[in-house]
């Protein structure tokens, strides 16, 4: 299709004089949109009242049926990022962002029909499968491009984009609530029309990203910057092809690090509201707990920017040492802040905020860690495959937290003290990640692509 030729990689190469500071907003436009996925829960109650409007009827969908929509989307995120990463490297970021925008918007439009016809499988297919593919493509699409535009600050660059994914939920949640209130009538909860409106709004913002993103021209480098002659031990100037990287121990060590860090973070995120209420019974109610969840979201987003930018100065491996060592200590100490020990809400909130900042930081710093070890050539594709660790953690974290807590309560533990075991296990997971980080060494030269240096 000739009219889509503007999406070709060759057509998106930056002209001389193009500012690299236009590329992060393009990446942010994509991530701010797809980050809406984390706010999907605001649709859960209205979707259980499509027939009853004011209350659920027997034929309405249950919350457990609806939970599959988000789970499917996250699984598809991991799968599509792993599958399409190599295609993305060849096709370029503009085509991948466009495909992401089409899938993400289409997911909303298809789900509209699922609401109108009251067919849940249509929403599974729309938002879950097709929208989920859009999530995966969108998540990895700007990574490689940003790293090439910011060879001097790769952590800062990818942190800016991945920060957007954290911020996306902050936009998606109030936007959905306001739109549902606007479209709500006596016979309609307003979800369907909200899906149509959001699909359109997000498509438009993502198109801004599509039209703004540019590929770095061959041989370009930032003004007044020369590549360091002597690289740090863990920073390579060589490249490793994605299928080869998949076979290196470094890939799987990073996979373990990401999986452990995310699993532990989800341990808090998943239980944030009930945990603070049960640890400080009588002092913290549901409204204040909602505020706590909001605060964690801010630190999750801020940590993505702060830690990834910091990693440019202190190095990727030391940054993860901080996440994994400090995280383990803080998880161990967290239950001691509860109502039957130190009884300090402030300390509990402060520690949780630091932990969530490191959870976000773990996501945002991993692309730069991959670039250090495997070069820039296939970094988006390798990142895509690494995101399967997120899919695994997305299941492992909530399962661990919920089942262990219920097991402890079933065996006579108080609700507040049941968290102690859960958080100790989270600390243990971070120790596993710490050991994996300790084992990370430079990639063996036998894996390097022949005659391929960075930027080639």
């Amino acid at each position, binding site marked *: 299709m000739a009219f889509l030729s503007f999406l070709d990689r060759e057509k998106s190469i930056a002209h001389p004089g193009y500012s690299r500071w236009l590329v992060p907003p393009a990446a942010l436009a994509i991530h701010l949109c797809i980050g809406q996925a984390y706010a999907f829960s605001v649709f859960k109650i209205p979707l259980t009242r499509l027939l009853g409007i004011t209350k659920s009827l027997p034929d309405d969908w249950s919350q457990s049926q609806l939970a599959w929509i988000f789970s499917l989307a996250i699984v598809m995120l991991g799968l599509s990022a792993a599958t399409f990463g190599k295609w993305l490297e060849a096709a370029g970021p503009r085509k991948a962002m466009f495909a992401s925008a089409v899938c993400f918007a289409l997911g909303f439009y298809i789900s509209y029909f699922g609401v109108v016809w009251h067919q849940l499988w249509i929403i599974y297919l729309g938002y879950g499968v097709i929208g989920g593919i859009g999530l995966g493509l969108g998540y990895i699409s700007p990574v490689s491009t940003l790293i090439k535009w910011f060879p001097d600050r790769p952590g800062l660059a990818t942190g800016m984009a991945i920060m*957007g994914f954290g911020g996306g*939920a*902050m936009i998606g949640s109030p936007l959905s609530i306001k739109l549902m209130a606007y479209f709500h009538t006596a016979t309609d909860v307003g979800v369907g029309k909200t899906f149509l409106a959001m699909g359109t709004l997000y498509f438009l913002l993502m198109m801004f990203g599509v039209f703004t993103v540019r590929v770095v021209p061959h041989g370009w480098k930032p003004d007044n910057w020369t590549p360091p002659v002597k690289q740090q031990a863990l920073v390579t100037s060589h490249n490793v092809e994605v299928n080869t990287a998949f076979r290196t121990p470094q890939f799987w060590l990073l996979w373990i690090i990401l999986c452990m860090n995310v699993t532990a973070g989800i341990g808090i995120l998943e239980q944030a509201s009930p945990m603070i209420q049960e640890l*400080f019974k009588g*002092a913290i109610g549901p409204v*204040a707990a909602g505020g706590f969840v*909001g605060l964690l979201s*801010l630190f999750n987003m801020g940590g993505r920017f702060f830690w990834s930018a910091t990693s440019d100065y202190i190095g990727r491996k030391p940054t993860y040492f901080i996440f994994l060592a400090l995280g383990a200590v803080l998880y161990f100490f967290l239950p001691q802040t509860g109502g*039957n020990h130190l*009884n300090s809400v402030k300390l509990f909130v402060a520690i949780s905020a630091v932990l969530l900042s490191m959870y976000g930081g773990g996501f945002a710093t991993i692309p730069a860690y991959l670039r250090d070890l495997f070069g820039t050539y296939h970094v988006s594709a390798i990142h895509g495959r690494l995101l399967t660790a997120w899919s695994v953690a997305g299941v492992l974290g909530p399962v661990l937290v919920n089942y262990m807590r219920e097991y402890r309560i079933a065996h006579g533990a108080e609700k507040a003290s049941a968290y102690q075991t859960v958080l100790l296990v989270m600390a243990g997971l971070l120790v596993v990640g710490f050991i994996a980080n300790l084992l990370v060494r430079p990639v063996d030269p036998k894996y390097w692509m022949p005659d391929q240096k960075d930027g080639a």
Partner: protein
Amino acid sequence: MAENTKKSSGAMILLAWLIVGIPLGWGVYNTLLSSMKLFQAPPAQITTPASPVK
């Protein structure tokens, strides 16, 4: 064919950041308002430690 060497203008860069910054700022503002509820909660009750941690 003359090569396009036009520098990106500061206004264009500012506009690009505003396009993403305004919705992000709106989201952060809403979340900040929501998180204020935590600090408006009544002070924690002083409770006696129930039992030592085993």
